[in-house]
């Protein structure tokens, strides 16, 4: 065993009514609610030009593709054309995609997932050409060519807080938790840090262990790793995955290994995890706001094309939600967090 703080006993000290638990429960209550409104309220207010050409650079994994599809849908509403440029997720192919974007000279470039180091040269060229670049889900900062960054390192911290609130509440502040992280995705680091911080804050006596998983284990021996870990750490009650992907295949492996009674919660749920939740194989998931992010990006561009600042959108906090079996909106793929987000955005754009 490694790094487990001597917590199991001291955690008993945290009485059901401890302030930490109360705070966690309160936090969870808000996170479990499905938000009804998007956080942007200020209408664009001007006629949005049609016929804009936008390049969307994919990152090679599913969530980026989803994002691109949602974005394309939203842009279609405004009569814009979106060209999706595929990459294999390798830095080189991402560079090549930016290279192509530079040559295309679109009205804007949207991308997801890659730190700017990879495409710094092309970014400079795009900036020089006055083409705005919009990023999301990347370990980066706004400025220096990046006009808008959603779900950047500052934004994703809340995800760790959401997960912590659930774990602490669910355990009655008596959790012994293992957090499986995928360091290959650096954007997940703030999630991990914020989880640890909030977890400790709400439940000082709760044990927490952190396990890094190499990306080569994903889709292969990940379930086996989890089983091994739980067998060698039998006191662990809660398992947190920093990405839904890591949970694939884990529930059935736990079942066959006879490891029952462990609670699983994942960050960035996907269809599979929602189905696990529906089937009672997993307890909870942080549902990401891909729909809202994509539409918000379109909203930002709409403001840009009408000569306004994107600051409104940069400031707006995107909705998130912690889903469990009780409040799971749907199991079929990604669902929007805000049910009527399209209507609300269209209203801002003067389309309805």
């Amino acid at each position, binding site marked *: 065993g490694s790094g487990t703080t001597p917590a199991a006993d001291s955690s008993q000290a945290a009485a059901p009514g401890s302030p930490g638990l109360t705070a966690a429960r309160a936090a969870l209550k808000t996170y479990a609610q499905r938000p009804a409104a998007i956080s942007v309220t200020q209408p664009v207010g001007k006629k949005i030009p049609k016929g804009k050409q936008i390049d969307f650079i994919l990152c090679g994994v599913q969530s980026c593709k989803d994002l691109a599809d949602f974005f394309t849908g939203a842009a279609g509403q405004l009569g814009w054309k979106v060209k999706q440029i595929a990459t294999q997720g390798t830095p080189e192919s991402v560079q090549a995609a930016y290279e192509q974007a530079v040559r295309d000279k679109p009205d804007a470039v949207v991308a997801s997932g890659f730190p700017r180091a990879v495409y710094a040269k092309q970014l400079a060229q795009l900036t020089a050409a006055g083409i705005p670049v919009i990023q999301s889900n990347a370990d980066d900062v706004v400025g220096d060519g990046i006009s808008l960054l959603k779900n950047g390192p500052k934004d994703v911290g809340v995800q760790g807080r959401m997960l912590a609130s659930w774990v602490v509440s669910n355990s009655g502040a008596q959790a012994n938790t293992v957090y499986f992280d995928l360091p290959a995705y650096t954007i997940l680091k703030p999630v991990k840090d914020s989880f640890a911080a909030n977890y400790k804050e709400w439940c000082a006596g709760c044990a927490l262990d952190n396990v*890094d998983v190499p990306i080569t284990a994903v889709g292969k021996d990940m379930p086996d790793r989890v089983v091994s870990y739980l067998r060698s750490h039998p006191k662990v009650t809660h398992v947190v995955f920093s990405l839904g992907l890591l949970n694939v295949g884990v529930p059935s492996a736990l079942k066959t290994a006879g490891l029952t009674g462990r609670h699983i919660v994942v960050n960035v749920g996907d269809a599979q995890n929602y189905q*696990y939740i529906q089937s009672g194989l997993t307890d909870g998931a942080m549902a990401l706001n891909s729909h809202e992010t994509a539409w918000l990006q379109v909203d930002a561009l709409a403001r840009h094309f009408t000569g306004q600042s994107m600051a409104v959108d940069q400031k707006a906090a995107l909705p998130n939600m912690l889903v469990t079996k009780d409040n799971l909106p749907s199991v079929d793929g990604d669902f929007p967090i805000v049910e009527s987000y399209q209507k609300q955005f269209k209203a801002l754009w003067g389309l309805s």
Partner: protein
Amino acid sequence: MTSTPTRAAELPPSAPHRSAVFVPGALGRRAVAALSFRNIGAVYVWLVIVVLFSVWAPDTFPTIITVKQVLNGNAVAGLVALSVVPPLAARVFDLSVAYTMSLTSVLTARFLVSAGLGPGAAITLAMAAALLIGVVNGIVVVVLRVDSFIATLATGALIQSLITMVTNDSSITGVQLLATPFASIAQLDADGITLPVLYLLLAALAIWFLLEHTATGRRLYATGFNADAARLQGVRTDRLRFLTLVASALLSGFAGIVFASSVGSGSPTAGTPYLLSAYAAAFVGATQLRAGRFNAWGTVLAVLLLGTGITGLGLATSAQWAASLFTGSVLIVALVLTGGRIALPAVLRRRKGIPSTAGAGTPAESGTPPVTGKET
């Protein structure tokens, strides 16, 4: 100066043994040979590993649960590794198995989830696709005579494009995949041992029987060792090579279905992580038990050896670099122990020198590595 009946008497030292097979001495000698480092070096490495982890993680490792975990956790990897054994026995590389596996996994999922077919129909269709891949591989390799190594890389790319078309590169999920009839395929268990372990056992049995106990198996090995000679003996080498490609496609396709059932989704990259390790296992397997021949139990042994290590490491430490360090070192140790130079290099190098040094040469020589200064 007596007229010795030349050397006939001296030559066949084994003729007497044969009739004396049941004499303890001979039996003992055979047992010793069977248990030697050179024959089952991997087993000894395995034992060392087991002892090591039993000391390192005494509470959790030496338990029956660990056994089950190793078996359950490596059944799919074992199936994929087995799928490359028959082609390799005939000296055909099938590098498309990983893609075949991914394809059947996503096809099954798609048919179940979107097309609304029942598990039976979905599986049948997915296996039909695997069959088709096997046939295409066979055509490219056997009929068009493209080198199998590169041909199956190419067909692998074609399958990849099919996968992308089917999935748009994202996993296919659905509650249907988690529901009983389909989920049971991989998840039903008896006393903690899941069905895939049974599949692995059956597949190994079948391939072992095929290779060791049927005429086809002998002809496969003959094809692999010396295709020209085999053809002169009337072996239909092309047909056999074709069939091994079909067999590997079917088996890896089946592994894909089992994988889909086990994780409850169809993943477009399901097979990728299994490719290199399947070849590693098959090559290590070829140094074991039937040294120089790709064989079923040796391959299973190799898969379980590596699997035991990974599981043991998981129980003992959570350092993420430990797994590959362990895998690499165990592979090297096992291969060095067994002499390791089977399979490809032996095939490539086997010197049949002057008629009689051949006997002395190859098998004996391998015991004493580079004696002659000549080679360096």
